[in-house]
Every structure is written in C-alpha cells, then in structure tokens.
C-alpha cells in the first residue's frame, strides 16, 4: 500500500512537472477537467462498481460541493451585517477560506447528503436508490435556483486570484489540488478493494440476500459506500467555482457530470480501480479533443453512444477486454 502511494505520488509529480514543461496554460485547463473526471469516476465506482448500486445523481453531489464553496465565498459579505462586532475580526481572519479547507467542507456536505439519501432508500430494492438519486439532482437544482444568497438562477461570480505564492499561476494551483484529489481517490478505491470492506461490498454486489443471511451488515456497508462516494464527488466539485469563475445552476448540475461519471467506469471496467482511471483519461481526453474540434454537444453524444455500445458489447469494459485477451493467449 505504501509502495503504491509512493508510485502514485511520483506519477502525479511527473504529470505536474511535465505539464509545466509544456509551458502552456491550456494544458492545465484541459488537464484539470480530465482529473476532475478521474475523481468523479473513481468515486462513482466505489458505490456503483463495488456494491452494484447505481448513482445517477453524481451531478448533484458535485454541485453540492461547488455550491458549498460559493456559499462560503459569499460569507464575508455577511460578517458586518449579521455578527456581533467582537466576532468580526476573528471571522475576517478566517475568511476567505483556503481551497483545501473548502474541499474538505464540500466533501462533508455531499457525504452527509449521500448518507441521508442512502438511509432513506437503500433498504429497498436497488432500483429505488437509482431513481431517487436521479430525482435528487432535480430537487437540489430547484433549491439552488430558489436560493438567492448563492446567486439563484442568475449564477454567482467567483473572482479567481491571478497568482499564488510558490506555484505561480492560479490554474496550476487548482490543477495540483485536483491531482492530489485524484491520487487520494484512487488510493482509497484501491485500499477498499484489498480490505475487508471491499469483500463486504463485493458480497452485496454478487448476492445481497445471501450476504445479509451470512451476517454481512449490508445496510451499514452500503451507507459507508454512499457517504464515501458522495464525499469524494463533493470534494471534486468544491474547487470548481474557482476554476470556472462564474457558476450557474445549469452548469454545476450539468448532465454531463452524471453521464460521464457512469460512462467512464463502465467503459474502463468497474471491478477495479484501474477501470475508472483508464475510462476517465480516455474519455476525458477524447472529449477535450471533440469539444475543441467539433462541438460540446457532439462530445456528449459520443459519450452516450460509447456507453450504450460498451454495456452491450463489452460488459466488463476495457479492463475486461484486456483480461479476456490475456487469458485467451495463455490457453
């Protein structure tokens, strides 16, 4: 495990310095999006791939993280009007919060939402959970649209500082944070796979009734998976307002987050941490390419079609195809 983490950090460092060598900010903008999808896909797979419960509401969890940031970003404006004067200097020293703190808060918010949703629906058949997550996105969007403090349907501006100490351009700082998040997400996913927790998840996926009967605490495990997966998605969303500069509900709740976080693990392969990583890098880069060369609606279409083709033709994704190929060769 320690070795894996060291390797992952080394790879991440190589990616970061490699990107700096190219010396073009666009690399960081595009790379940030791809890394964001690595985190989302890995997070989705912790629930979807390991326990077999489908979450269609990734966009909602992502947006919760993003809007937690917006809410806290707007907070200093309230200090003078709502808090006693004695507290004001203290609050002003704390705010604005640094992005790593915002990431943690975004993660907590989305994790708690995931836990609550899971508690209400996970005792029922799997399909209900999937449907509830789908509906969750619509409702949270309704709440945000009606919440004037975070900008409502008009959206909110977040001014991104131009530079940051030590690193330089702000986008490189955001890129580095997302890179770190990706490493953390993958390390968690891999850790789960090799732990008792992972075996528990797998029993739920394979036969929940049998697992329950043999004493696996299925509800508890499912709640852990939901909260963890939701929290990681929220963490991926927290820096987003700083990246995009202007956040409106329709962009934070964009269906492309929901479809990508399902399509990437499905196309890469859902049984191990490698699948979402491969899927996210391939699809993420492909989309960057298609967005630049053709249009952003076409890129969404491509993802949807690939998802349909892969679930029909290659149920275990690219990882499954490669494994099948290797096994065929051994024979």
């Amino acid at each position, binding site marked *: 495990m320690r070795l894996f983490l060291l390797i992952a950090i080394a790879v991440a460092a190589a990616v970061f310095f490699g990107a700096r060598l190219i010396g073009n900010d666009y690399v960081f903008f595009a790379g940030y999006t791809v890394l964001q999808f690595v985190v989302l896909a890995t997070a989705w797979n912790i629930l979807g791939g390991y326990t077999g419960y489908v979450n269609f509401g990734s966009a909602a969890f992502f947006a919760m993280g993003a809007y937690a940031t917006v809410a806290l970003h707007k907070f200093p404006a309230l200090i003078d009007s709502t808090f006693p004067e004695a507290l004001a200097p203290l609050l002003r020293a704390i705010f604005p919060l640094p992005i790593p703190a915002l990431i943690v808060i975004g993660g907590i918010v989305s994790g708690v939402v995931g836990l609550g949703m899971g508690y209400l629906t996970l005792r029922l058949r799997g399909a209900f959970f999937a449907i509830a997550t789908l509906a969750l996105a619509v*409702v949270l969007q309704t709440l945000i649209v009606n919440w004037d403090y975070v900008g409502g349907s008009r959206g909110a501006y977040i001014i991104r500082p131009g530079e940051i100490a030590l690193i330089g351009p702000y986008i490189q700082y955001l890129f580095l944070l997302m890179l770190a998040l990706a490493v953390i997400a993958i390390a968690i996913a891999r850790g789960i796979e090799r732990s008792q927790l992972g075996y528990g998840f797998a029993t739920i996926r394979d036969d929940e009734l049998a697992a329950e009967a043999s004493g696996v605490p299925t509800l508890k495990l499912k709640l852990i998976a939901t909260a963890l997966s939701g929290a990681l998605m929220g963490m991926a969303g927290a820096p987003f307002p700083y990246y995009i500069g202007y956040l409106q509900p329709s962009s934070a709740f964009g269906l492309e987050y929901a479809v990508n976080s399902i399509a990437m693990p499905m196309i890469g392969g859902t049984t191990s941490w490698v699948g979402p990583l491969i899927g996210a890098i391939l699809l993420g880069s492909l989309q960057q390419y298609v967005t630049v060369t053709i249009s952003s609606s076409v890129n969404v279409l491509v993802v949807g079609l690939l998802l349909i083709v892969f679930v029909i033709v290659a149920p275990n994704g690219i990882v499954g195809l490669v494994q099948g190929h290797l096994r065929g060769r051994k024979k």
Partner: protein
Amino acid sequence: MVGISFDLVINALIAGILLGGFYAAVTLGVSISFGILDIVNIAHPAFIILGSYIAYILNAQFGIDPIVVSILMMPVFYLLGAGVYQVYHEAFERRGQESLRGLSFFFGLLFVTEVILILVFGVDYRYVEAWYIGPSWRLGVMDFPLRMLVPCVTALALFGALELFLSRTFVGRAISAVAQDQLALRLMAADPIRIKRIAFGISIATTAVAGALLIIIQPVEPSVGREYIGRVFAICVLGGLGSLPGTVIGAMLLGILESFTATFYGPSWAPAVAFGVLLLTLAFRPAGLLGR
C-alpha cells in the same frame, strides 16, 4: 383560510386534477414497464419527448391535430419499444445483468435521445397549434382551460383502454401474470419473452400519446423530459407498482399537490414536490397506496 380566496383554492384544485390526468398518461407506460415487468426504464421520458417532437413536426408541416398524430404513431412506437426490449433482453436480462448495466443502458438511451434532439432542433421551445389551445370553459367561478381538459380526458381514455386490455384479453392477463410466474405462463403455452416484448411495446406506445399531450400543455424543448423522471417514478411508487388505477390516483394526488405548491409558493418550487413525495413514500409506505 384568511387571505386566500375560495376561488383560488377551487381553481388550484381543478388545475391539479387536470394536471394529474395528464401525469397519469405520462406514467401509465412506466407502471407497465417498471411496475409489472420490473424493467427500470428511466429513458421513458425521452420517448415522451420524442413523441412531442413527432407531434410538433406533423402539426407544423401538415396541420394535423397532435392527438390524432399520436394515435397514428402508436404502432410505430410499439415497434420501437419491442425493438428496445429485444436488445435489452439479449444483452442484459438473459445474462442476469439488468441491475447495473441495464440501468446504464437506459440512462445512455435517455441521454443520446436528448442530445440528438438538441443537435437536430436546437434548444428552442416548440409548440403545436390546435383549436383547444387557448379557449376555456367557465362554470361559475370554476375555470376549465381546454388546453388541460382535453389532455386529461384523453389520458383517462387511454387508462380505460389499457385497463380493459389488461383485464379482459388473454395477452393482457398474461402480461399481469408474467411478473408473477413465468413458468406457469409457459405451461399455458405463452412465451414469457414474447409477452414481455408486447408489454414493453405497449408501454412505449403510450409515450406517443403522452408526448402529444405534453406539447399541448406546455412548449417543449429536449431537456424538459428530465423533470418527468422524478415525477413518473414518484407516481408509480405512490400508486403501488403495477396497479393502473393506483397510478391514476397517484397522478391526481401529485397533480393537486404540485398545483397548490405552484399557486401558493410559486411555480419554481413545483419540481421539488415529486421528489419529496417519492422519498416520503419510499421511507414510509414503499408498497404505495394501493400496493399489491
């Protein structure tokens, strides 16, 4: 109630019932596919939007009444549904992978349909023209906009036809039986796969009508369908899975609730109602109001 006039309440109630009738048309198909066949077709709203666009095209080109269009299109949608079921069956049901991959398949369908419609028609709102869009009947203080009344009546007719079909014909009864005991069905010399294909075809055929009703009620753009995902499944669960009368009652209840929410709190809150209803039902009465 102080400050809230009786007229407002009674008209909110009427609007809710009419809206509920329309919601019934939207949900009947899901009651068959999800409630009876256990196929979680989350792409159902996408087919409805497709129905809306076909009604729009034929209405704009040839001036045909949208409801007439939708009835003419039902066989086409039936074949489309039967085709989709065949793929679903071959790729997922037979391999026993319907939960994870089957769901993703329908999610992909939902998504691809929406994006194709966006690419072809753009995101402009489209609408149809018909004599009943605009005028309204008045009965004392009560107001019956025909734009809502006609869809509601059509929906109830659709419900009646489906209920008769399911309870009176051999195939209809076989559809109700397929969820319970496939082996017994086989012993009755009915192929369960064929029955399921027919049932799924019918469920998609209803979306042709539901789509036409939708575009009569409101202008439509491709992403409107997403709002209906929460609604249809909330109604379906509320009504008790697979019960058509339950579906109509559930639809009316949700319609009334949404109408009151829109009247007294503002229309931007209405989409949240369905989700609240869905979560509360799942938490307290998962079998629905008229559960089996």
